[in-house]
């Protein structure tokens, strides 16, 4: 009995493998119906299943296999051509066989369902129909005497096989309990001769070939061993333990500094590392294992949707951890479904649009920087941001007002919001209650990310990034509050060590938040001790000797994590947290250190969310601003301060060089102007009430200084209090308070806050401040500024005008284009995200217009992502600058104007 069980197990395992192959083979066969090898391979598989089923007495299985074989034999013998109908019914039988196998695996019995018998009848009728067609088609061939003669010896053999098979079936049928089984069996028996006949026809030519390819298959099985997955997992755990023990030994060896021990240890270290890698490899599987299921899925889906889709698979050999492969299968299926259902158009529409009738779907996998990238790309209609917006409004995800302000890219990301489906009709393919939000959540659970790129009319690409493995990860060990923590290397961007001096210069404390200016970018800082609420263990020593900043990337934003010390990087084995601790979102798990003690693994996303929480807190208070779901592009840190009580002011933090305090005694008066000593120079300080209609600065012992460094010079505003900093999107009203030195107002934290025009104020204070001798162009250069936010528009034109340019502004790309048609300009500065026509579209429009196709264009944005930069360059932008960096923008303007003048001169 147990031996039979053993055989059954082997049979099931083998059959399952073969069936996976069958799915793919059938689809290939449909495209290449003449491929004899393929047909034979399929025939063999089905034949094996039939034989084994007969041996075990699985009558239903045998029946299905039998008639499939029957149909296949006709195909093999060239009597019928493979068409869609045949493929469909054969695929159906594969599905039934799979279902039966699944049932066998579970209960050891065939499913007791009338459905299977119905299908056998259907299959039989189909086979019969084919036979009749064949008989009508080729009566002449059959009567050819020569062929029959040649065929004779083979046929005799064949008949014997059939005979014995029939015998077993008969026995089975007799022992079978259900009547229906019996009747189906008798039908089987009746059908046999037909099959034998059909085999006769071309058997002589095909038979010898058939036997040959069987040999390599047998050979293959000898080099591979089936291993229980649990055994592999256990090995993996043990390897993990071994790595830990090794780490411990390495530490001891270093302490003892015994050369022999160290040498022996190093050797063992090598072996362990190698062992670990090899065991890791056993868990690695080619992504092809998942991808291979897709030709079938794509075929079924595209038929269902009445579309023609060709699937191209690239990088199927890319390997990743088995546990990950299992989890990504469903998200991938969902996205492929989406592509076929919503992406690729029906053939008629495609032809109208000048595309090939057959749509192309590419599934691509490759390694990049320790991660696996999976792309699903289609050349379909792309996603229409307007439709997405409309749908989002309909579903109540966003309000119509919000929809008007968000950019196309953000609109696309709405697809990942829970409860979203863009299909106009819910078809049976998609709309199964699983949305892209589930896809996103699943991928993020794996520590991966999803990106979506879509060009209307050209197609959509979904990019998934996932880690190679989850079990052993490289991590950076840091120390905070006397404890060690591990930070996954994937999230690590760079390490920054600040001396006390540099810290004072570049770290600004505003309200409760700290910021560090890293190469011109504002980097919010999080103190790990504070996040973990052990401030009492704040290391006095470390804070007095500077700062250790670990710059981390949490999906869409970067932040600096301040830790007491940075130790080393190490390969760590991830172990889960117990159920009492699971809910703490700052930890991703635990790991063991070389000394046997436990260290917690930090969850970078979780820690970043504590920052977001703070930002959201303040956002909630900004009644007006928070209502807008405005672009990430327009978000910025604002510095809030007061001069006299109850009058609130704001300016972009990015303009500020540093904040300082000054005692009233330190302010000197030189030449009628107030100055203080700063960095060895005397720096002018501005009292804002002298230039703005505001209440004067009250008398105080100490004032706060907001120091700017522009045009190689320092200058400061004198204010009474720095209130806070705010990460928010600005919607400045420029009507109510529009005047010299003020850009506009907004309600922040329930208070009307005036936005200062820093450049303008400085210019009023010192008209020569921004004058750079170099800007001595023959005529005053005219610059067109396209920018949708009035705040930035005013800011840009303010400092451009201050630098001596003539500036005209436009509210968006469309307006800019209209102005360009009428007037001449030397240069265009454009924002990227704008309504109606964005910066890229504007650039393309300009480059394709003969009138001004050579005009220099500078794209400005509040964040400078590499991706945006690349897109900008592709669109034809000459330069790319952060919009708040006055000096850089002015430099770029000067350079571009200079070069065009030289061209004109030449």
């Amino acid at each position, binding site marked *: 009995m147990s031996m039979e069980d053993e055989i059954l197990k082997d049979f099931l395992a083998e059959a399952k493998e073969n069936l996976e192959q069958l799915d793919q083979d059938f689809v290939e066969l449909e495209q290449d119906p003449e491929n004899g090898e393929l047909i034979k391979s399929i025939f063999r598989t089905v034949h094996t299943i039939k034989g084994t089923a007969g041996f075990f007495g699985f009558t239903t299985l045998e029946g299905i296999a039998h008639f499939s074989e029957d149909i296949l034999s006709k195909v093999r013998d060239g009597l019928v051509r493979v068409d869609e109908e045949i493929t469909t019914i054969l695929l159906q039988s594969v599905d039934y066989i799979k279902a039966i196998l699944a049932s066998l695996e579970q209960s050891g019995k065939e499913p007791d369902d009338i459905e299977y018998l119905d299908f056998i009848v259907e299959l039989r009728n189909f086979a019969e129909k084919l036979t009749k067609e064949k008989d009508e088609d080729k009566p002449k061939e059959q009567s050819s005497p020569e062929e029959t003669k040649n065929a004779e010896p083979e046929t005799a053999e064949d008949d014997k096989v059939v005979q014995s098979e029939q015998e077993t079936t008969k026995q089975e049928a007799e022992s079978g309990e259900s009547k229906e089984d019996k009747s189906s069996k008798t039908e089987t028996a009746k059908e046999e001769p037909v099959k034998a006949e059909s085999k006769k026809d071309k058997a002589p030519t095909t038979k010898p070939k058939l036997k040959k390819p069987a040999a390599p298959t047998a050979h293959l099985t000898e080099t591979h061993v089936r291993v229980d997955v649990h055994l592999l997992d256990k090995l993996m755990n043990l390897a993990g333990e071994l790595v830990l023990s090794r780490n411990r030994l390495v530490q001891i060896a270093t302490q003892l500094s015994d050369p022999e021990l160290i040498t022996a240890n190093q050797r063992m270290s090598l072996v362990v590392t190698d062992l670990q890698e090899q065991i890791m490899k056993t868990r690695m599987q080619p992504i092809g294992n998942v991808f291979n299921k897709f030709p079938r899925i794509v075929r079924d889906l595209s038929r269902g949707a009445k579309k023609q889709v060709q699937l191209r698979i690239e990088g199927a050999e890319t390997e990743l951890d088995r546990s990950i492969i299992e989890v990504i299968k469903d998200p991938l299926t969902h996205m492929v479904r989406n592509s076929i259902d919503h992406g690729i158009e029906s053939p008629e529409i495609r032809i109208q649009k000048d595309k090939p009738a057959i749509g192309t779907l590419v599934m691509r996998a490759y390694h990049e920087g320790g991660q696996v990238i999976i792309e699903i790309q289609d050349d379909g209609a792309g996603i229409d941001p307007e439709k997405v917006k409309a749908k989002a409004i309909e579903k109540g995800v966003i309000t119509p007002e919000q929809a008007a302000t968000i950019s196309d890219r953000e609109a696309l990301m709405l697809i990942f919001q829970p409860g979203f489906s863009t299909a106009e009709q819910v078809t049976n393919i998609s709309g199964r209650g699983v949305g892209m939000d589930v896809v996103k959540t699943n991928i993020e659970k794996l520590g991966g990310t999803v990106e979506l790129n879509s060009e209307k009319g050209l197609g959509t690409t979904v990019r998934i990034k996932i880690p190679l493995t989850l079990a052993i990860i490289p991590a950076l060990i840091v120390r905070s509050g006397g404890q060690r923590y591990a930070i996954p290397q994937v999230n690590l961007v760079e390490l920054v060590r600040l001396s006390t001096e540099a810290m004072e210069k570049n770290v600004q404390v505003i309200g409760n938040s700290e910021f560090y200016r890293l190469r011109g970018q504002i980097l919010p800082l999080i103190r790990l001790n504070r996040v973990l609420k052990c401030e009492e263990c704040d290391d006095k020593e470390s804070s007095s000797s500077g700062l250790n900043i670990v710059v981390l990337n949490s999906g869409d934003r970067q932040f600096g994590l301040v830790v007491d010390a940075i130790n080393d990087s190490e390969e760590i084995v991830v172990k889960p947290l*117990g159920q009492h601790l699971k809910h*703490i979102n700052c930890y991703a798990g635990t790991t063991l250190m070389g000394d046997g003690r436990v260290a917690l693994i930090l969850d970078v996303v979780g820690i970043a969310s504590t920052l977001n929480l703070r930002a959201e807190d303040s956002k909630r208070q900004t009644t007006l601003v928070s209502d807008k779901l405005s672009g990430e592009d327009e978000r910025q840190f604002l510095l809030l301060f007061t001069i006299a009580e109850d009058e609130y002011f704001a300016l972009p933090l990015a303009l500020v060089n540093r904040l300082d305090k000054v005692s009233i005694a330190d302010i000197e008066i030189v030449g009628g102007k107030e100055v203080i000593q700063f960095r060895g120079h005397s720096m002018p300080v501005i009292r804002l009430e002298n230039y703005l209609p505001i209440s004067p600065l009250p008398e105080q012992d100490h004032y706060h200084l907001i120091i700017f460094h522009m045009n190689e010079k320092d200058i400061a505003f004198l204010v009474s209090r720095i209130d806070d900093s705010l990460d928010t999107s600005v919607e400045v009203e420029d009507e109510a308070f529009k005047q010299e030195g003020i850009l506009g107002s907004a309600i922040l934290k329930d208070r009307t806050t005036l936005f200062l025009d820093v450049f303008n104020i400085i210019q009023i204070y010192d008209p020569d401040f921004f004058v750079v001798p170099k800007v001595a162009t023959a005529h005053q250069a005219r610059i067109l500024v396209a920018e949708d936010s009035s705040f930035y528009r005013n800011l840009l034109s303010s400092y451009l005008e201050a630098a001596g340019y003539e500036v005209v502004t436009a509210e968006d790309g469309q307006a800019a284009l209209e102005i360009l048609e009428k007037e001449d300009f030397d240069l265009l500065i454009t924002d990227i995200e704008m309504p109606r026509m964005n910066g890229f579209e504007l650039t393309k429009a300009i480059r394709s217009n003969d009138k001004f196709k050579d005009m220099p264009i500078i794209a400005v944005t509040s964040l400078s992502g590499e991706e945006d930069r690349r897109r900008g360059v592709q669109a034809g932008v000459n330069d790319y600058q952060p919009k708040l960096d006055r000096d850089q923008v002015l430099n770029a303007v000067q350079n571009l104007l200079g070069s065009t003048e030289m061209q004109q001169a030449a």
Partner: protein
Amino acid sequence: MSDMNQNNISEIESTPELRNEDTLEFTTFFYNDHLFGLPIDEVIEINRALDVTPVPLAPDYVAGVVNLRGQILTAINLAKRLGLKKEAQKEQEISHNNVITGNREEPISLLVQRIGDVISVPKSQIEPPPDTIAGVDRSFVKFVCKLPRNLLMVLDREALENPEKAG
């Protein structure tokens, strides 16, 4: 459970000669005057040499995590979990007596002040806990057992393991 006890009690009464077999063994440990116990088959091991790594942000009653031969367990400060008086907690913080208990999948470690003996108690003396027990959260006590010198409180392992239960 109490039904079962009733049965046991009647059994003991009817067959006094089997009394030895009808005892339960408990691993005991002390907190000042309090004596606690866990059925001996629920205790995996007692370990005095495990370092506790604190976990910031964890619930108050979690002392941290410990490494038991590669497996990482949550260490529960029993005093805090049971709501014992302050003095007791202070002393406990110095002690590192780990009583490892729980299912094999995810055991927990209880940090206790002092380990006591293994004692056998006749089943007949095991009772459901009274409505109130001075200074101890009753929801973690499964049974009590009156011993000649003091009261043994048999802890409810499942309640201790359950993170939903407030400490």
